[in-house]
């Protein structure tokens, strides 16, 4: 087991039928993987609507290209790569469209007011990261991708992935326990 939520076994028969274009088989594949696919898309994009679009597009792409899956690695890994590629393309497109990533500097509370100096839960802290930092820390720590693989997703070098990971973890610690982080910084 890899620890990734995607690590779900798919029987050969369903896979063979999906490869032949059987819609019931494709639906079985979708039902099996919809939750991990949506989850990873949501963790990367940090928006439910975008995650829904990303995961749907990813499944359509995956079923359209399913014949390219050679079977030399688990199917879930191949499918996960398709979903992650779609999610990363989306955040990169969106970050090009917006010039400043406000989430890097400000954390918005529910009421729209800035919230500083207060501990956040893990979910909110993750959501407060910049999109690339969040994607890198999630892909590395939860999905188990190495720096080389993450760099490939982004079309950048391994040092990009290492720097982002270290920055994301530091920022998460800070958000989760601001007192401890400020003490450490003071030392």
């Amino acid at each position: 087991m890899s620890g990734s939520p995607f690590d779900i076994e798919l029987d050969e028969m369903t896979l063979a039928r999906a490869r032949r274009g059987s819609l019931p088989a494709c639906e079985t594949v979708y039902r099996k993987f919809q939750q991990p696919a949506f989850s990873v898309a949501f963790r990367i994009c940090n928006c439910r609507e975008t995650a829904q679009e990303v995961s749907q597009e990813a499944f359509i792409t995956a079923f359209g290209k399913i014949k390219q899956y050679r079977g030399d690695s688990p199917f879930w890994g191949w499918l996960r790569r398709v979903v992650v590629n779609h999610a990363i393309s989306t955040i990169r497109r969106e970050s090009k469209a917006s010039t400043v990533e406000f989430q890097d500097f400000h954390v918005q509370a529910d009421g729209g007011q800035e919230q500083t100096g207060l501990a956040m839960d893990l979910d909110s802290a993750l959501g407060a990261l910049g999109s690339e930092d969040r994607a890198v820390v999630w892909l590395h720590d939860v999905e188990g991708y190495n720096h080389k693989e993450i760099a490939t997703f982004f079309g950048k070098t391994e040092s990009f992935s290492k720097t982002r990971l270290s920055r994301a973890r530091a920022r998460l610690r800070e958000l989760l326990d601001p007192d401890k982080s400020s003490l450490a910084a003071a030392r």
Partner: protein
Amino acid sequence: MKVLNMHEIRQKQEDPLNLRSLPLVMPEEDGWPPIESALRQQNRRGRLWKGVGGTLAVAATLVLALALLLGQRFESPATDTPEIVAAPVVQEVESAPLMAPTLESLIAMSQQLEGRVRLYREQMGDLNSNALVYQVELQDLIVQVDEELSMDPGSRELWGQRVNLLLDVTQLYESSLRRDYQQMASL
């Protein structure tokens, strides 16, 4: 102080902030309907493309189907429990005229082929496992075409696709018959 076991140490290294403890996120809407509709369009486009690009193949299929009908008309033993006889296609194919099939002729072919498949199934029982997988896939595709036909019952293109798929199913049984016959002959 708690002593960590190896698994916990590794997990702490791989996921120091325990991001894996976050639950999977479920989509609020069922994402399958739009995926299904996109796949149907893709399948339809694919089949149309095949139809346009493979005129000769369609003509050959038509000739085969006509021959099948003619063959059945001439060979019918007129008993309540007819025996399976391989379709005598060759002689008729050579003299069969090439013409565009009418909707009525396609529906008639489809019915004839349905009857033939039923007969094969009753008399031959299960196919071997490889052929069975293929047969299940073909049946799934027939179900898809039937669903599309329920919305557009007068589509010549859809009836043509149905005839083609049924011909594929009959060929599976006929190949299986030939194999059995060769095995018996070699004894």
